[in-house]
């Protein structure tokens, strides 16, 4: 009888609890504690992402997929009946705004965990708040710094790829194939800098020649004054390290300037949402990396299951790369909660560290020293022909399998072990 009660909706549960007879029955039931917990506040996951601004397209998909992970957790009964809830906030891609919103999430909303962010710089601001208050933060956007000893804390997890892994995978593929003379066009903030550092590092193995790195501010809408210079450098490869709307506009305008005729454009990350927002021509032929592409569903049952669940929840839409990260970030935390049987921070940290998971893209785990998720990197190419559906935008060229050798060593990050 009691198990039936747990499965029922919250209203009937509440009604039942208020009746004296049920109360009397429960007083002697071994499930009493579970039922009382079910009456507790939901497990709250704070989710600060930049819904407005140049990365808005990606952020919306993070929210969608995050909601899916929460819905699945709740449908499966939650934590002994205790449901989870996603508390979404717009950080406007601004570190100050993100810190304020996160503080609000922690202090006012009393969230149990924070998952989110979509910027190498903003996630550090969020991490500052969460680590000071001892709240678990699972970051779902790229950053090298967040795993370094200076920024890291035992509450910090990183579900996303980092620039070192991404640029490594793309560099190993591109430098072997397209040539050694490389010019860079880079968004002038942490993400861009870390990507270029990664490319130059892997470039040493291939003896690439760095022709120059032109940096543009975040949120640039016109690249016409930067492109002639890059063209004049006559590189084999133009490496464009920016993201979101910057990437859309840069690739569109580079296409207009005819750069693709003689130069192979590569990008550390090709964002699915940006490719859809910019249209096929702008991205056509560009090679880059990503953490997830729905098309690997023939390879992994977990991808197929994730795609199907996402399709079902969002009218046949397929998840994007950053969406998948939103899903992974929330799901890992909730699975750890289940594993730990509690929302107590230390227990969940231990459960996360012990997790060996395959939720959407093949096997992954969090490395002990820096909580970086060790995972595969896909090298993809954008296509403009033979598209089977509106999400059929990339072709997977190669996959770099999950391996700690592609990560910076724990010592290099300043950790002891």
């Amino acid at each position, binding site marked *: 009888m009691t198990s039936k009660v747990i499965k029922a909706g919250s209203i009937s549960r509440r009604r039942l609890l208020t009746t004296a007879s049920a109360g009397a029955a429960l007083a002697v039931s071994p499930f009493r504690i579970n039922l009382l917990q079910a009456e507790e506040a939901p497990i709250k996951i704070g989710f600060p992402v930049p819904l407005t601004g140049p990365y808005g397209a990606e952020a919306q998909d993070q929210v969608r997929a995050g909601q899916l992970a929460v819905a699945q957790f709740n449908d499966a009964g939650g934590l002994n009946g205790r449901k989870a809830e996603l508390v979404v906030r717009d950080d406007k891609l601004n570190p100050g705004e993100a810190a304020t919103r996160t503080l609000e999430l922690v202090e006012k909303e009393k969230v149990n965990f924070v998952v989110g962010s979509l910027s190498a710089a903003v996630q550090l601001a969020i991490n500052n708040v969460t680590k000071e208050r001892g709240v678990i933060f699972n970051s779902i956007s790229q950053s090298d710094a967040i795993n370094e000893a200076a920024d890291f804390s035992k509450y910090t997890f990183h579900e996303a790829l980092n620039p070192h892994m991404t640029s490594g995978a793309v560099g190993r593929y591109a430098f072997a194939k397209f040539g050694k003379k490389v010019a860079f066009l880079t968004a002038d903030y942490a993400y861009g800098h870390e990507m270029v550092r990664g490319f130059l590092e892997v470039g040493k193995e291939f003896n690439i020649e760095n022709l120059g790195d032109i940096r543009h501010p975040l949120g640039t809408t016109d690249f016409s004054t930067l492109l002639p210079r890059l063209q004049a*450098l006559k590189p084999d490869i133009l490496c464009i390290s920016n993201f979101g709307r910057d990437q859309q506009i840069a690739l569109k305008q580079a296409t207009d300037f005819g750069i693709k005729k003689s130069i192979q454009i590569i990008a550390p990350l090709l964002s699915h949402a940006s490719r859809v927002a910019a249209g096929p021509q702008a991205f056509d032929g560009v090679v880059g990396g990503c953490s997830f592409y729905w098309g690997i569903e023939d390879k992994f049952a977990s991808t197929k299951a994730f795609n199907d669940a996402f399709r079902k929840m969002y009218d046949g839409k397929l998840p994007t790369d950053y969406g998948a990260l939103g899903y992974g970030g929330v799901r890992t935390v909730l699975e750890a909660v289940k594993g730990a049987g509690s929302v107590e921070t230390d227990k969940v940290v231990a459960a996360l560290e012990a997790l060996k998971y395959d939720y959407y893209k093949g096997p992954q785990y969090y490395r002990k020293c820096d909580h970086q998720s060790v995972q595969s990197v896909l090298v993809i190419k954008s296509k403009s022909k033979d598209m089977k559906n509106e999400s059929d935008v990339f072709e997977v060229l190669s996959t770099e399998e999950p391996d700690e050798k592609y990560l910076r060593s724990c010592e290099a990050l300043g950790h002891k072990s």
Partner: protein
Amino acid sequence: MAGLSFDLIALQLFAGLALGAIYVLFAIGLSLIFGMLTVVNFAHGAFYMVGAYVGLYLISIGGNFWICLLAVPILIGLFGLAVERVLIRPLYGRGIDYPLLLTFGLSYVMVECVRIAFGKTGYPFDTPEVLQGAVNIGVGYFPLYRLFVIGATAVVLLALWLFLEKTSFGLIIRAGARDPQIVRVLGVDVSRVWLIVFGIGTAIAGLAGLLAAPLQGVIPEMGGTILAEAFVVTVVGGMGSIGGAVLAGLLVGVVVSMTSLFAPEMAKVSIFALMAIVLIVRPQGFFGRAGLMS
């Protein structure tokens, strides 16, 4: 970095002028409205953005880019007329900050409405087929579409000049800007003149938005960045001076372009550095009339 060739510098200069043409097209509407109405139109960027979205919508229901070139300025102009008649007109004679605050708020409303109607994410906007690709302009390849934008800007400027300088209605507009009271005494309905000026200014903003769409796609926030740059252009050119806006727009384009060549990190700052220098040397801008703001 590799050495600088003559061709590169010439191409860079040209890229600057092309960029300047976009600034000019955006800023003349702003300058026109300020010069004639002394209304600082903070919603100008929003009209620009709505212009791009109207173009996007017209194309999605079967229109083409060339129809949009005509339809967008007309529709946005009509929208501008309505805004002037209903919202701005009651504020004339109340000090410059009233319409400024109103249009500032209006821009938020417009952006939010577009977000509700079209979503927060951007849309691609294809360059019309005949204008795709790059052509050799002697010193290097340059996108054909950008050349088209320069041409379109020149046509708009010429039409505006002819209208203001060669027609009797243009004469009334200029007179109304100089001394509305006398014009009113002479039996001219000044409020009608202002209505039309506001409509023309917003129509040009809508056209500029449409022309910018194939360069960068459309997104609800697209009017924000260009508004800041356009204010620099109008301030440098002299608030209210159309000739000043043209000169300053091209100059800002070239300054951005040349800074991009030598110190790309400084390109964005260079615009404001230019403004600071001009304001120190010549507070009213190139062709501005002193005291228009007071």
